């Protein structure tokens, strides 16, 4: 049997998981990570187990997949993990009792349990082999490395989920604002418009847009205005200052828009926010 080069396997695992495809949903990212663990370890059973309360754990990802969402009564397992000071647990032979995993491990000879706790979740990655396995120092280094990398992946995935939720929430709010909102980043490449702005600028889709596309659409809008010369002159004045401009009237044959121009200067982002609001007729 060829000698396992565990250090090499650890490095391969880190390399394989170094690119986090942000377009993938979190379960897919985790599932891919488990496949890389399987590839690195040649294990028969891989379970990402999350402790959901003091007595219950749920399998969040598994190979074989039939264990997905499997529920485990985990009080004794949690005691085992705590007794090890949340270090990696190595079982060359599985204890007969005291862990609550007898049924799951009935065909398994050797087990490693890697604590994979994040800010919001507490859990382990259980790796099991159906054949006997001796855990030498290189093997232990490999497992520690996988454990560290998995914690990073889980944390990155958690943050990704968090920011996705924020993006969805604020996107939903801004799309429902009755004014047209146009934001142009100072990086000169990207911008964002809400649904009302997409209609006003005759752009097919709201959301992220190239700056050039938004600028073209804004130029066309300005060209349609009855007071386009006045707008053009004031624009030169406005752009030369960093002050907020409000109640700037753009007249069109069928309506008047009150335009606000708000420079945005924050540590993380800078740009220009345009707000177009329909002027209500007097008494309306």
């Amino acid at each position, binding site marked *: 049997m060829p000698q396992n080069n565990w250090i090499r396997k650890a490095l391969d695992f880190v390399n394989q998981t170094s690119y986090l495809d942000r377009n993938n949903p979190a379960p897919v990212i985790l599932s891919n990570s488990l496949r890389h663990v399987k590839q690195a370890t040649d294990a028969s059973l891989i379970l990402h187990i999350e402790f*959901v309360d003091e007595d*219950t754990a*749920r399998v969040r990802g598994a190979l074989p997949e*039939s264990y997905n*969402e*499997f*529920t485990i*009564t985990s009080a004794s397992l949690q005691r085992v993990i705590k007794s090890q000071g949340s270090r990696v647990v190595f079982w060359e032979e599985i204890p007969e009792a005291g862990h609550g995993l007898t*049924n799951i491990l009935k065909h398994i000879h050797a087990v490693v349990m890697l604590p994979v706790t994040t800010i919001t979740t507490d859990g382990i990655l259980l790796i099991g082999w159906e054949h006997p396995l001796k855990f030498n120092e290189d093997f232990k280094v490999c497992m520690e490395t996988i454990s560290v990398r998995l914690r990073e992946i889980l944390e990155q995935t958690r943050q990704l989920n968090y920011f996705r939720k924020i993006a969805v929430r604020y996107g939903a709010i801004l799309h429902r604002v009755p004014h047209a909102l146009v934001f142009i980043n100072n990086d000169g490449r990207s911008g964002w418009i809400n649904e009302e702005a997409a209609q006003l600028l005759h752009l097919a889709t709201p959301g992220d847009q190239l700056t050039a596309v938004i600028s073209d659409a804004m130029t066309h809008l300005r060209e349609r205005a009855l007071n386009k010369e006045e707008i053009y002159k004031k624009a030169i004045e406005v752009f030369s200052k960093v002050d907020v401009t409000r109640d700037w009237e753009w007249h069109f044959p069928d309506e008047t828009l009150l335009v606000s121009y708000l420079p945005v200067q924050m540590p993380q982002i800078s740009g220009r926010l345009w707000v177009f609001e329909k002027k209500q007729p007097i008494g309306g």
Partner: protein
Amino acid sequence: MDIIERNNIHVTGNLDAPSCIVFNAGFGLDQTSFKEVIPAFENDYQIVTFDNVSVGKSDSNAFSPKRYETINGFAADLAEIITALELNNIIYVGHSVSGITGMLTYTHYPELFQKMVLVGASPRYLNDPATSYIGGFDVPTLNSLFEAMEANYYAWAAGFSKLAMRNEDRPELAEEFAYNLGKIREDMAIIIARAIFYLDHRAELPKLKIPTLILQTENDVAVPPVVGEYIHRHISDSRLVKVHTEGHFPQISAPQEVIAAIQSFI
């Protein structure tokens, strides 16, 4: 945790029999719901009955919102009961959602099961237009159901009991079910109902490789006839039998028919 106490487990019948029948009642019912059915099998089988956490004489302190936010929590309890009692050669009779928890448990312990009886079970209650699946409920209907449960649980329980039990000529049946529903703690009932009505275990059906009997009643508010036919199509060794009674609880409204169907199957 003492599983016997948690689930109020009883082992009766012929304790020397080589096979056992595990009866598991669906949402809102305890083990007494099979009381008219069980005597027909007591001489020839070990009989295992229990109460799922939240109903009957189960230990309500064992309820955990996280554990039972999906029905995998109940499947885990069932697996623990089976392994604690060292059961094998199991003929499993699962009513409603407990048919599905039995199926989930089977997928991890197939060697322990001999036959499966699904009484008014559904692998998914929500329609799925993407796959043309009819489960009987759409999202607005389920939203209304949960709004009603949260607004006035006891009023909901009374109304739902009549709808689910049917058999208007025997109002005492619906009254008893309403009484049982009313005994469940409201917060538990809502969490479990969500776990049930949003489950989707269609993918597990083809994994069931043991002889399976599907009992389908008429005019079942929770499980339309197409669901029984769907289950039948997706379990290779299955038999679909229509029980000539209305409502979701044939073991209560037509126990003799249920007994006859199970006897001829096993």
